[in-house]
């Protein structure tokens, strides 16, 4: 699967896409979902949570592991993708459609990579 060129990426394998200037949607990359295998649960954040760039936002579970999802930006969670509560497999099926949370009122941002730079990071890890 190719990483969409209009998305941005961080080294901890989350993607973000700008909905407008002060609002992003966040998810995990294809590389991350493949590494974790079949996801069985997404422990979604709560609307109103404040996030800090580079700090855990929430976590996702596979059968035998749990991984933190890191917030790529500092801000406030203004929406969550509730569909994932009952259907975590959507992340495996279409990681770039299955957004986890929407973060607004952004005050800080991690180092963002474009698709090519992110692919280089993945190649290094493989």
């Amino acid at each position, binding site marked *: 699967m190719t990483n969409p060129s209009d998305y941005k990426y961080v080294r901890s394998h989350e993607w973000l896409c700008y909905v407008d200037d002060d609002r992003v949607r966040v998810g995990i990359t294809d590389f991350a979902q493949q590494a974790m295998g*079949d996801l*069985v*649960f997404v422990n979604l954040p709560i609307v109103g949570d404040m996030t800090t760039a580079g700090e855990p936002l929430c976590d996702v579970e*596979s*059968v*035998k592991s749990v991984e933190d999802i890191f917030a790529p930006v500092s801000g406030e969670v203004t929406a969550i993708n509730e569909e994932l509560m009952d259907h*975590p497999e959507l992340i495996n099926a279409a990681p770039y459609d299955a957004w986890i949370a929407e973060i607004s009122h952004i005050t800080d941002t991690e180092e963002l990579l474009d698709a090519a730079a992110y692919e280089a990071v993945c190649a290094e890890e493989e």
Partner: protein
Amino acid sequence: MELLFERSHSGRSLENIPATTVSEYQLPEQFARRTPLDLPSLAEVDISRHYTELSHHVHGVNCGFYPLGSCTMKYNPKIGEEIAALPNFTQIHPLQPAQTTKGCLEVLGLAQQYLCEITGMDAMSFQPAAGAHGEFTGLLLIKAYHHSRGDGAKRTKVIVPDSAHGTNPASATMNGYTTVNVPSNAEGGVDLDALRAAVGPDTAALMLTNPNTLGIFDKNILEITKIVHDAGGLVYYDGANLNAVMGLVRPGDMGFDVIHLNIHKTFGTPHGGGGPGSGPCGCKAFLAPFLPKDQIKENAEGYCLTQPAQSIGRVRSFYGNFLVVVKALTYILMLGAKGIPEAAQGSVLNANYMKTKLSEVYDVPYDGFCMHEFVLSLEKLKHETGVSALDVAKALMDNGIHPPTMYFPLIVHEALMIEPTETESKETLDRAIQVFMDIYHAATADAESLHQAPRHTTVRRLDETRAARNPVLKYTPDKD
């Protein structure tokens, strides 16, 4: 196999309880439940045969070899079961007057005396019901101790090595502590420099298993405990691996301040398919004032229960899994001063024998003598053949052997952690070694056959993803 509920036939029952003869007393309707109870209707023969069938689909220590690392699945002497079933133990109410429970108190008193002698501790609470519960209790003692010195607010960190059992960091969290992981050194022990860098005025405790989960006795143990003490922290001994050294060296002499034991591992009491265990928490004298309520103590008339002055309170009702302590005391009395260290040596001999033989083909990532267990790494095998530790474990099942602990400790890739215990004969070990060898050769010749294992078990590999995504956690009759 049918579930018990699927064997139910309306109208069947055992009629084991008579109706009351004072039936004029009836619960007023306003308190009564509305939804009916729905227990199965069965005859006694149905129950007997059902559970007999279920018992045929369980691998117990009585069925065969059980080399499950860090779990010490030794043979469970039957005398312990009979002693624990004595009516004068089973029919004693926990709130009877003390003068009518002298026998029970003596059991706790003797168990405390002997286990303190084996561990080098000064007092022991039997309240914790399992190892993790003992860990929780031990860290509570540490927390209460730091608080009593006005140090509680600043000592917020518990250090654990990266080879630690998962319970260690989880116990730290339950006590409001932050976990600091320290790496292991090349020999599998604690990296002293990393430890020195990690300790400080914020250190509450170090939690350590020795021998550790790689089966290695840390030769720097005195230095390790000193580093932590010098920083004002205390040192906690996770007793999961005591079987290797019981009667030979004592945690108290290594510098540990507080410990828990896994009675159901080290002292021969059975695991019951996951409990009841017993996880007594022992400590040095300076921590005894913080022990849970109802602490056993010797007095002029025998033994009594006392309330420690600065007790942390209670971690459960009453005095712990008493009958399990009865079994452990029975075990200690039988083995005695000579048998306890002999059992430890036997466990180490069996482990080193298997390790020596298996290292002819399998990779053993850490050199030197092991203690009661050792870890194989199947990383190379997996890389070369695609056969993983999981595949090997599944293939062992087809040969009547319970798999070793898998994928633990986390610092070894494709780990299989093998603990044969002292109660296995040489022919059992030799057969197991042969099975391991055959599986290795099968992996190089026909990897696919191992991906298909097990073939001869009750069920084969399970769809665990399905179980976790759509949890079905009870039987529902109309779901089909």
